[in-house]
């Protein structure tokens, strides 16, 4: 089944119809989506800025990252679920929108970046937890993470223009 066919099938499901025609479905999902951006985005920003040595330097890196982790997962889960549902409101439009796919690629890249940081340089965090300067490679990953999430906001906003 081709992508367009799949999107057309999706757009006729009862969920998609209700998201498109319902009065409250879309705005309620949008509000939860934006709240999740604040929760998840704020923690991504402060977490990365801590690794860069630009925020909360009196708190060890590992503590910031560990303490944020459960909240980040809640925020990310909620972002993902509401994001998928919002996309389902008009699958044919989004499926054919190049910016939509660029956004998803940026999301994937940010995920890979987080994974590489977590299972790479972060494993040695004990040796630089309180260091005045974090290792250059940790700072590179944190900087790249910030850049990718910011790019995702721009690409997400651009969806409406393509």
């Amino acid at each position: 089944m081709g992508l367009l066919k799949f999107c057309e099938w999706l757009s006729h499901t009862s969920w998609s119809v209700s998201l498109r025609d319902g009065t409250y479905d879309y705005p309620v999902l949008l509000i939860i989506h934006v709240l999740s951006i604040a929760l998840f985005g704020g923690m991504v920003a402060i977490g990365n800025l801590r690794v860069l040595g630009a925020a909360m330097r009196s708190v060890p890196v590992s503590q910031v990252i560990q303490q944020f982790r459960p909240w980040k997962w809640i925020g990310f889960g909620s972002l993902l679920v509401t994001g998928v549902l919002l996309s389902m409101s008009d699958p044919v439009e989004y499926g054919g929108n190049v910016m939509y796919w660029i956004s998803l690629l940026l999301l994937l890249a940010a995920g890979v970046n987080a994974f590489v940081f977590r299972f790479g340089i972060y494993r040695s965090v004990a040796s630089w937890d309180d260091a005045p300067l974090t290792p250059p490679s940790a700072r590179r990953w944190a900087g790249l993470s910030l850049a990718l999430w910011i790019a995702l906001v721009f690409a997400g906003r651009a969806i409406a223009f393509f």
Partner: protein
Amino acid sequence: MWASIFVLHLLQGIPEALPLNPIARWEWVFPVVEAVHICGFSLLVGTILILDLRLLGWCLLRQPISVIAKGLAPWIWVGIAVQLTTGPYLFSSDPHEYVQVPAFRNKMLFLVLALIFHFTVIRKATEPSRDAASPIWRKPAACASLGLWLCVLLAGLWIGNL
């Protein structure tokens, strides 16, 4: 009532966007500035959310509240600076229209209340002298802060809905 009519009268004296203003001239400037506004929102409200979660005792518990508040404060200021630059610039795209949208006026009201609350009550709740003896109003204050910023967000989303 007379006061609000007077203020409305003043606001309606604001002229149309200047023809040379880039945001009124080119279609792409608005969404680009808006994307920066969304990033600033995520930073500002996300950072305040982290502080409120700490006040509620749900995150970053190993450090005293005042240490967390001091570490986050510069980024709250960065967030405020970004929002108070991009916000008024978005407003300048069509001032005459915005002042007549009730959601916009509500957003400004809640924004002023949220900022005043942050720099009075929340600042008091995060003073070093209060780290040991936790005041009874600390958690209600965190909830009120969350509520006020939620109102700013809801009213902001509503502007685009109308």
